[in-house]
């Protein structure tokens, strides 16, 4: 992991920034998000992929691409969480209490 971080920090940073941007937007965006069963299905899919990566059952290049994808996705989620929290905090400060 440390090796990949040093090797591709540019892509990883890009994923964090992308996540940050999406998190920032998502707080104020109107519209339907993923809900219900689909959310659960996606969660299960991601968990299965993480399980496969940890168990190292996917061989060769596909295994590497899976690892890379999951790392990018994890950093994207981290960026989303940070972006959403920050935006929420900014919005809460600028809106006078009702």
């Amino acid at each position: 992991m440390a090796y990949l971080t040093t090797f591709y920090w540019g892509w990883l940073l890009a994923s964090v920034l992308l996540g940050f941007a999406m998190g920032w937007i998502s707080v104020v965006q109107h519209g339907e998000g993923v809900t219900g069963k689909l959310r659960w299905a996606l969660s299960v899919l991601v968990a299965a992929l993480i399980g496969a990566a940890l168990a190292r059952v996917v061989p060769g290049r596909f295994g590497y691409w899976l690892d890379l994808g999951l790392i990018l996705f994890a950093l994207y989620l981290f960026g989303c969480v940070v972006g959403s929290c920050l935006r929420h905090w900014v919005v809460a400060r600028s809106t006078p209490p009702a």
Partner: protein
Amino acid sequence: MRGLFRWSGKWWLGVIPLVIFWAIAAWTSTEPLEADLAQRSTAALKDTILDKRRITVAGRDVTLAADAFAEDGRQGAVAAVEAVPGVRLVNDETRLVPEAKPFVWSAERDVLRVTLSGSSPLPAIRARLMEAARTNLGGVEVVDRMGLSRGAPPRFDTAALLLLDQIGKLKDGKITLSDSQVSLSGMARELGGREAIAAALKNLPEGFSVAANEVKAPPYIFQAYKDPVAMTLTLTGNAPDNNVHAALVAAAGRKFFSEKVVDNLKESIGAPAGFANAAVSALGALSRLSTGTLVVSDREVKLSGDALYEGAAGQIRAGLGKDFPQGWQFKPEISIKPAAAPVDATVCQQLFAELLGKARIRFESGKSDIVADSAGLLDRLIETALRCPTANIEIAGHTDSDGDDAANQALSERRAQAVADYLVKAGLPADRFSAAGYGATQPIAGNDTDQGKAQNRRIDFVVK
């Protein structure tokens, strides 16, 4: 927290560019990553001795295929690659090199090249052997047919390097090391090479032994050619050492009284046992021929040429082989020189005087036994006597003035008689010869010097 859950439903939109990022990252990074991991894995195995090492990288998975020379080396190699940062999995396709039993290594030399084959314990030793072979053999092609195997005896490399030194001393042949047993066969390059190899093998490392040494030496040649026209005796070939060399030249000088000795002998070890005695005897036989060639090749003596008369030919054919040490072979090819034209008594006397002016019939000191060196001279005297069959000849014995007169008189008579007996034995009629002794009464030189005394101790042939 509830807010975070609600917002997260809208994060999926960003997944689309994320997937694009992912695809680009995967597209651009895979090959450089694989190359980097391959290079790091290779570096990690820098100090590990492996054969046929092959590293292939797919993604972050490294496949290591190699032949290792020991189990701990094999496990160490896999662990070293596993420890390389970034490597996810190591597919272990390593194996131990096969064990050779018996562990056989050989070096074979033919006209064109030296071939090293069999097993070598490590790549470094294999390279060292090849390097040593190239250095030792300067210019000869060296072919590497060695494989790598486990199971070499301790100090294999020292033994193999010593044996490679020996292959340089062979013209052709093979040296095989089977476990700790050394076998050698072939032909030594030079005289003495066989002995040099045998001596070097004594330095084999402890535990190694010579099972068979069948290295042959090139034939040990000694040749003598008597040229009646140039009046020379040419000695060529080998003599074992300085002493034998000098003895052969001295013997040739004594036996060939009218020829100049041309000494082209080289000194070289490797002579068969009894060489010196056999060569001196054979030179004696050659001295009795009018023209001839002597070839001593190892333990075989070939003598060809013309004897001066029939009796001499018979004596040489029958007698020489008996003088040789056991195991020697004598191959005479003796013909008889055509008889020279008869001459009258005066010419005969001149011919006797000429011959006896060049050399004297020699006897054992104080005795009447004719020494073998005088056989050539006696043959020529007999040949001359045969040319004047009607002449009667007095064989006159003389001594120097040392000792008392009666003893000198008796000695001169016995010596003259010994010569007469020799001639009769050779087939000349006894009634043509009379033996007379004159003691010291007829000196031809002063008896006050050793040289003068030597001239006075003589046998004269006087035609009556």
